[in-house]
């Protein structure tokens, strides 16, 4: 069990957790219409590069050049660490980076002017720790769309080891042409705002974001990460399992003997692709969670890839702290076979636990169990 000290989200809905959470409560979405380079309609939640750069320069007063993903990552980590009041440069602090593609946009810019190593995720992680003067080698996880959960599970391990007092978990991914074209090739993007768990869902929206959670090992009231689990479907590298095998197993492992009735809600992966959402419903039902309220945040932030597990954990735990269950944005008509309980309105809860789930390419699935501890 580790304890959340602070958090931050940098997204199109704002640069603070408060701004993002408030926007979610107001039902806002950062997803805006646009075109891909081939002229097709796409809907993406994009960071404003000008606003990001301006904020970055104002906060850090640096002359050196940083890429947009680096700026978002550094700004997010900085804001969260300031709030936590921890020493970033202490040897008792460790950084964990979660990203699927980091600076991949540089691959499409032959004359970008940065050193070659900038393309590597270990470099991005090293820059994160080094920027704040931290002496430890950071942990870098790249486990497709579940990376943000893996990074938080790594935080449990790092703090349990006893070598650290604080772990800063930061996730970042943008949506350059590389990623947009890839998802287009899979025909998995919805040209309009996505509809998780809805009958008319036809694909996902991409989103750009950085998000950070600072964890400590000192017991304190508030949000605690109780446990986490990662399990594979052993079924298909890009198609979700029909039996939800990996997600079911990850749920069983992470929840242990905790009764379903203790769980306030599930912040699901809910990408709005036809197969993912159906797979999740099967897994929830198999795990005895068919009547637990679920919601997806993808219609408000898009799929923020390596940041998703952290960003969505921040929003979900904020709601848990306030005793609220969020409505699943974009959902209107039931469209899932089998039992599932999609949250349609903002409701109150006095339960103390919530679950965050994620699934990704490579057949991987992850589950995090959070508690609003007394």
């Amino acid at each position, binding site marked *: 069990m580790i304890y959340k000290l602070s958090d931050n989200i940098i997204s199109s809905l704002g640069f603070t957790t408060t701004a993002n959470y408030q926007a979610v409560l107001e039902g806002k979405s950062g997803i805006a219409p646009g075109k891909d380079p081939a002229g097709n309609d796409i809907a993406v939640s994009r960071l404003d590069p000008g606003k990001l750069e301006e904020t970055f320069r104002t906060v850090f007063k640096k002359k050196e050049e940083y890429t947009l993903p680096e700026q978002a990552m550094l700004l997010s980590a900085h804001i969260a660490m300031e709030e936590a009041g921890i020493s970033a440069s202490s040897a008792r602090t460790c950084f964990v980076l979660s990203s699927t593609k980091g600076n991949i946009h540089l691959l499409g810019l032959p004359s970008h002017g940065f050193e070659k190593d900038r393309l*590597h995720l270990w470099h991005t992680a090293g820059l994160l720790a080094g920027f704040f003067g931290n002496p430890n*080698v950071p942990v870098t996880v790249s*486990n497709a769309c579940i990376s943000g959960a893996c990074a938080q599970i790594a935080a449990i391990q790092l703090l349990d080891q006893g070598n650290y007092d604080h772990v800063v978990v930061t996730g970042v991914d943008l949506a350059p042409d590389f990623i947009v074209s890839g998802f287009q090739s899979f025909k998995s993007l919805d040209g309009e705002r996505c509809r998780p768990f809805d009958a008319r869902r036809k694909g996902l929206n991409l989103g750009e974001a950085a998000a950070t959670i600072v964890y400590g090992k000192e017991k304190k009231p508030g949000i605690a990460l109780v446990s986490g689990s990662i399990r594979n479907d052993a079924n298909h590298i890009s198609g979700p399992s029909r039996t939800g095998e990996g997600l079911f197993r990850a749920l069983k492992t992470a929840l242990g003997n905790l009764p379903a009735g203790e769980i306030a809600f599930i912040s699901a992966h809910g990408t709005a692709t036809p197969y993912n959402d159906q797979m999740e419903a099967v897994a929830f039902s198999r795990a005895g969670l068919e009547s637990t309220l679920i919601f997806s945040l993808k219609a408000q932030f898009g799929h923020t890839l390596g940041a998703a597990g952290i960003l969505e954990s921040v929003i979900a735990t904020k709601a848990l702290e306030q005793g609220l269950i969020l409505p699943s944005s974009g959902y209107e008509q039931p469209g899932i076979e089998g039992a599932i309980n999609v949250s349609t309105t903002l409701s109150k809860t006095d339960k103390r636990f919530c679950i965050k789930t994620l699934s990704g390419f490579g057949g991987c699935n992850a589950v995090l169990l959070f508690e609003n501890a007394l």
Partner: protein
Amino acid sequence: MKKITSYCRITDQQVILNGKKLEISFSGDPGSARLTEIYRYLDAKYPKFHKMDNLSKAGFLASEIVLRSLDYDSETPDGSTSVVFANRSASLDDDKRFQETIDPDNYYPSPAVFVYTLPNIVTGEVAIRNKILGETSFFILKDFDAEKIHIFIEWAFSSPGINRVLCGWTEYLDDLCDVLVMMVEKESPEGMDFNTLNINQLY
């Protein structure tokens, strides 16, 4: 005490199983062609192999060699084994290939190339081939680091019900192959002690 019960090392020059060099005569240039030669030598009969990117091929072959040496049952679903790999270059080898296919005139490149632009796909390929239902994880390190790899594997063992971790270093970039795959078992009377020193020696 945890033991390394089998290991396989694949470089551009050779394939080593538990200290012994496999008698594979490479005729092609280093890179993808050599991976195909190893596949033929193994007579693996797994046509999906040919669809994989080079990183997945390399990790798949080393895993295949290790699991065969242990008579691993690849037909029965196995929830007690995990797959944890690490490398330096993530999926950059396939990323470059995918980037070359992107231009406004051909905006829908092959999904078969795109799916491999994630480093953890190799762990998924190994899980699918062997019906492994435990954890699959991928970490990035600047260089091969036995101490860090040892730590990541210990983390995987801390998850309930996990008794074995197929693990190691799977690096592939620009025709350079650098792979060490090991099986680490929780309770085994045989094998090398699972520690940083031994991991370094095998590499």
